[in-house]
């Protein structure tokens, strides 16, 4: 690791001020950033730790019924505290990495990083979540811009993520056993008037909505509704863990399993 300083603000305002400094970078759970620093993939002069900022942690239900999750809330806290209100998302959080990773890693850090195999982006897209920052609200559909790219500007922080809680939902993760990231992960969400299907891990373009499946599910929420559909292998990731054809096949199988499990 290159050398840097660590600053530990206790308010959002102080964190934003510290991030104005050139080459300053936010540090949340560090479960992605610290390994990248060790690999010298990043060279910040200062890390601004978000861990002491209480105002961006925790889960609450807004007046309009949406579930609001602070950007600094850990995967472990989401797994525990959202279990009764949004079991699909709690189930997703409970399968990220391992307990020690979940005790540190945060939803804000995961969304900001937008790893093509990260779990939360599939739920954010399927549910049409809103990503709230210190300066604006961004619809999930406009937030993810490709591999490791998001709509976030320099020094912009995710303070909250708002989800319209579906009537039923489920996340199915086909684990790559060495990294425990999804080889393919699918989040499905059933609403009164629509179905949402978010797919992670599969595409070279990053997380995406499987529109055809959403249309089929809107009128018939069942695994059978997807039987005649197929996902083109074109543009799917190719690596030693799986061919594009294999991933395309998994997208359908995981979607069907998720729909069946969501009920």
């Amino acid at each position, binding site marked *: 690791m290159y050398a840097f300083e660590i600053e530990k603000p206790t308010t959002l305002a102080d964190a934003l001020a510290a991030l104005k400094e050139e080459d300053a970078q936010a540090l949340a759970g560090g479960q992605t950033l610290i*390994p990248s620093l060790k690999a010298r993939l990043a060279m910040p002069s200062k890390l601004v730790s978000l861990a002491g900022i209480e105002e961006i942690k925790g889960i609450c239900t807004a007046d309009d019924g949406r579930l609001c999750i602070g950007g600094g809330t850990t995967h472990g806290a989401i797994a525990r505290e959202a279990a009764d209100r949004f079991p699909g998302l709690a189930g997703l959080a409970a399968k990220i990495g391992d*307990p020690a990773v979940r005790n*540190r890693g945060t939803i804000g850090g995961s969304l900001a990083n937008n790893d093509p195999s990260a779990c939360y982006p599939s739920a954010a897209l399927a549910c049409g979540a809103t990503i709230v920052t210190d300066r604006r609200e961004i619809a999930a559909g406009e937030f993810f811009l490709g591999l490791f790219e998001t709509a976030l500007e320099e020094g912009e922080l995710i303070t909250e993520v708002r989800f319209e809680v579906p009537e039923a939902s489920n996340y199915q993760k086909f684990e790559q056993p060495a990294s425990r990231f999804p080889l393919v992960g699918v989040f499905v969400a059933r609403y009164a008037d629509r179905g949402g299907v978010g797919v992670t891990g599969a595409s070279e373009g990053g997380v995406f909505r499987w529109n055809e499946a959403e249309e089929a599910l809107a009128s018939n929420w069942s695994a059978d509704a997807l039987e005649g559909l197929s996902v083109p292998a074109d543009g799917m990731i190719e690596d030693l863990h799986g061919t594009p054809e294999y991933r395309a096949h998994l997208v359908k199988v995981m979607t069907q399993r998720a729909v069946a499990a969501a009920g």
Partner: protein
Amino acid sequence: MAQVSMSVNGQPAEGEVEGRTLLVDFLRNSLELTGTHVGCDTSQCGACVVHVNGAAVKACTMFALEAEGAEVTTIEGIAAPDGTLSAVQQAFQEHHGLQCGFCTPGMVMSATALLKDNPRPTEAEIREYLQGNICRCTGYHNIVKAVMAASGQDVGAIAAE
């Protein structure tokens, strides 16, 4: 350099660190608590698991300065002061939950954290909880058995496998 202070195994501990000093390096190099191991240094293996304010974390994936003011427990703080092993440690010994012992500090810290939250886990829950702890020797079988035994459960069913 910056000053850092925390409580480690119930004792006040302080020292000078850089921003980039990892918690595991502070524990091993400054405090000479070398029970916490570094297996991978890439956040995969869990040999470095310690408890920070009661939660299991990978000490290779946290900076020392992030533990400022925290209560840290390492493997050295698990046995009683007179050396009496904890239930988890005792069970690892009795059920051969270790061979070379390299992963054992992290395994014991993770298993201890599990039993605090879930005093009678099922075999599946134990295997799931220990996913982030890699062992190159035992094949995990006797580790799972040890955790079952430490939680006062019958290990007969596992032993038959």
